[in-house]
């Protein structure tokens, strides 16, 4: 087992390295120039010399391989460099936004779980009835409604009927839980609905699978009562794939946040990604993309390990 864990862990390194190379190259072929964006996009008059000088200062006139080596050397020392746009350390840029995005992701996960597991179970147990159809419609709709549109409708609704808007600046949870939740619960709902749809579908199909297993049939035949069978035996066994999906979705939630954070004007990682791309902030894009990919690769790693640990049939080759 421990050998499997170590090999599996070491395998992440070449993947991450390849991801880093890919990101670096992608960023360089993106048309658009951070210097021009910084100095010309406001419409005021600037000269060519100024643009050239700024390019030189940011090291953009160095050969590509040179820039790559600089970045790699930094990475090895866990130094992600500084943002070309703001001049701040990339770790700092990410750190100040991570708290918000992380909290939002956790809230969305809680909402998703609380909705998905009962609904999915109910649908599986009542398979084929109108309840099943209703739950399926609810979850399939969750995958269909664009979460940013949901956000827009929410904001419209609050403003029209309550003349109220979620707070615009972030308050940490421990400072003022009410203000914090007032800001984050709505985007969490918008993202969480979609997320719950994924989880509810997984719960339903996992439950269906488990309900057909022999031991459940045995339990029925032994005359155990319904709640005991469902909760103690079936759901418990169905939860593994469900938690896996929830876990992996969590690592990918950043995708959903990209758009939702725009709608709610949240200062999170998703907005930072959009800004970094539109600013052509090479160093920041590199850092962020690496973070996102690493998060996902790590989540996958953990899931693999958990599975290996739980399922004796997997060989630790």
């Amino acid at each position, binding site marked *: 087992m421990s050998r499997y864990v170590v090999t599996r862990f070491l395998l992440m390194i070449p993947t991450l390295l390849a991801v880093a190379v890919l990101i670096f190259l992608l960023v360089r072929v*993106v*048309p*658009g*120039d*951070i210097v*021009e*964006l*910084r*100095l*010309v*996009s*406001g*419409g*005021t*008059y*600037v*000269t*060519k*010399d*100024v*643009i050239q*000088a*700024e390019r030189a*200062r940011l090291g953009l006139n160095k050969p590509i391989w040179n820039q790559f080596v600089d970045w790699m050397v930094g990475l090895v020392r866990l130094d992600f460099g500084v943002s070309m*746009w*703001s*001049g*701040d350390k990339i770790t700092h*840029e990410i750190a*100040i*936004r991570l708290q918000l995005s992380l909290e939002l992701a956790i809230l969305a996960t809680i909402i998703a779980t609380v909705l998905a597991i009962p609904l999915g179970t109910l649908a599986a147990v009542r398979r084929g009835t109108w309840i099943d159809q209703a739950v399926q419609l609810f979850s399939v709709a969750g995958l269909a409604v664009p979460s940013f549109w949901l956000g*827009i409708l929410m*904001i419209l609704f609050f*403003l029209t009927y309550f*003349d*109220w*808007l979620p*707070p*615009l*600046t*972030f308050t940490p949870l421990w400072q003022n839980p009410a203000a914090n939740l007032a800001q984050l619960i709505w985007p969490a709902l918008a993202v969480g609905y979609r997320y719950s749809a994924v989880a509810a579908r997984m719960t339903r199909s996992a439950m269906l699978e488990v309900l057909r297993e022999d031991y459940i049939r045995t339990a029925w035949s032994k005359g155990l009562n319904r709640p005991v069978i469902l909760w103690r035996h079936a759901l418990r066994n169905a939860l593994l794939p469900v938690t896996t999906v929830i876990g992996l979705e969590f690592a990918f939630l950043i995708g959903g946040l990209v758009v939702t954070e*725009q*709608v*709610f*004007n949240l*200062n999170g990682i998703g*907005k*930072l990604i959009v*800004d970094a791309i*539109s*600013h*052509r902030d090479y160093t920041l894009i590199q850092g962020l993309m690496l973070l996102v990919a690493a998060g996902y690769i790590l989540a996958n790693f953990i899931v693999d390990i958990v599975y290996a640990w739980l399922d004796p049939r997997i060989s630790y080759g």
Partner: protein
Amino acid sequence: MRRNAAWGGAPWRAVALLGLLLALAVGPAGPVGAQQPRSGGTLNYIVEAEPPSFDAHRETTFAMLHPIRPHYNLLVKFDLQNYPKVVGDLAASWTISKDGLTYTFKVRQGVKFHDGSTLTSADVKASYDKIIFPPEGVISARQTTYHMVKTVTAPDPQTVVFQLKFASPGFLENLASPFNWIYKAEILARDPRFYERNIMGTGPFRFGEYVRGSHWAGRRNPDYFVQGRPYLDGYRALFIGSPAAQVAAIRSGQAHMTFRGVAPAQRDELTTSLGDRIVIQEGPWLCNNIVIFNIKKKPFDDIRVRKAVTLGIDRWGGSKALSLIAFLGPVGGIMRPASPFAMKTDELAKLAGYNRNIRAAREEARKLLREAGIPEGFSFTLQNRNVQMPYEPVGVFLVDQWRQIGLNVRHVQSETGPYLANFRAGNFEAGVDFSCDFVDDPDVQLAKFLSADLSAVNYGGYTDRQLDLWYFQQARTSDKAKRAQIVHQFEKRVLSDQIYAIYVLWWARIVPHWRQVRGYKISIAHHLDPDLQDIWLSE
């Protein structure tokens, strides 16, 4: 010197009278009520983007000015109540020599930096040296604006002298640039890049906090050199990019205002929902959208095609319709309509495309296209920026206008990065370009159209030495009428004879603010805001 000085200790009646006059001047919804300025409170306002660095000498964006400007002072500034009048900020007074070559400024006494040290003329000199003669490795975005300056000297602690190479009629206005913050000489000597990441000024507000992506806060400077100012205890600049979120922030009372301005739809939403709790100030804006051509490529290498394309635009009709949905408005040439050097309307009407008879113009356009061998339904690509307001309405409007002279236009809205990169590389046929500045002076307004080797933002790629010659002539012509004449020649050549560019419409600025925000008057450029020294909150 400053008009607002009357506000400080003046008797109530005088203030009321002044307030009344101002209220009359700006209409019933005027920003200034007949009320004694009140101290206290925090002004919350929206800033649409974030500052790249904190150093105004190197940046060009208003997003840096809006949150950070209140920490600094300029040598001279525009009097926003009487634009384009220039008044002293750190300068107590100044004299200009008869030949126009020597500007001597007396610096105010007793001005203190936020660290307690006293400002002297050496600080002014060091700041301007950094702007005009930046040391190696230091970037100054406006270095060439001051190419007429020979030296800046500080003969005594209270005096700064600018010695010019030639008399420049626009020099004083150019000095009032809101980007020319005065820094501390000692710090600059130690680290000329200190100000990119740090704040140390003389302004009415000291640095509070900056949460990147969220807000910037400042608090009152108790040692400010103007007695009784600032009125506010502090301010908070909230960074909000989406226009919908901006309006929502104002509506919900989380922000008092935005200085850059909003679109008509947002204005209407705010007035319907907030009624008389919101005040709307509208005025001209020194920004515009223009169409540029790649003069080196077919079909726009043919002057007849360019002329047809400008003739096909119904500017007057467009102005009326677009002003309802976008912050667009006045029809004009290169100089902002109604600005000191602008063409008169009847003069303007003689330029190609400015005639009000659009039927005749379109007829002529079709004829020119036929002559140039452009078939019916000819298609070309119009590059535009993916910024919704006002680029998108401008693009949709142009596509629709050109459809009416038989042209099929593909409208491509790109991110600002590739949009600028395509322009720079000449990788376009026609494009929606823009310019946005803070001073009406022709030195600034005409510079874009200099030959490609002289102007970094002439994307058309043409070389026209006649234009260059006129540009440098007008820059040295002190006689206003003569200068105007040269400027108009320049405009006519760019817009009507050679048609290097098409001026579509000038922007119109709409600034909404809650009723309690007082002492603010809209100016022609969002770059000139905010001068928080005189703003106060009535509730």
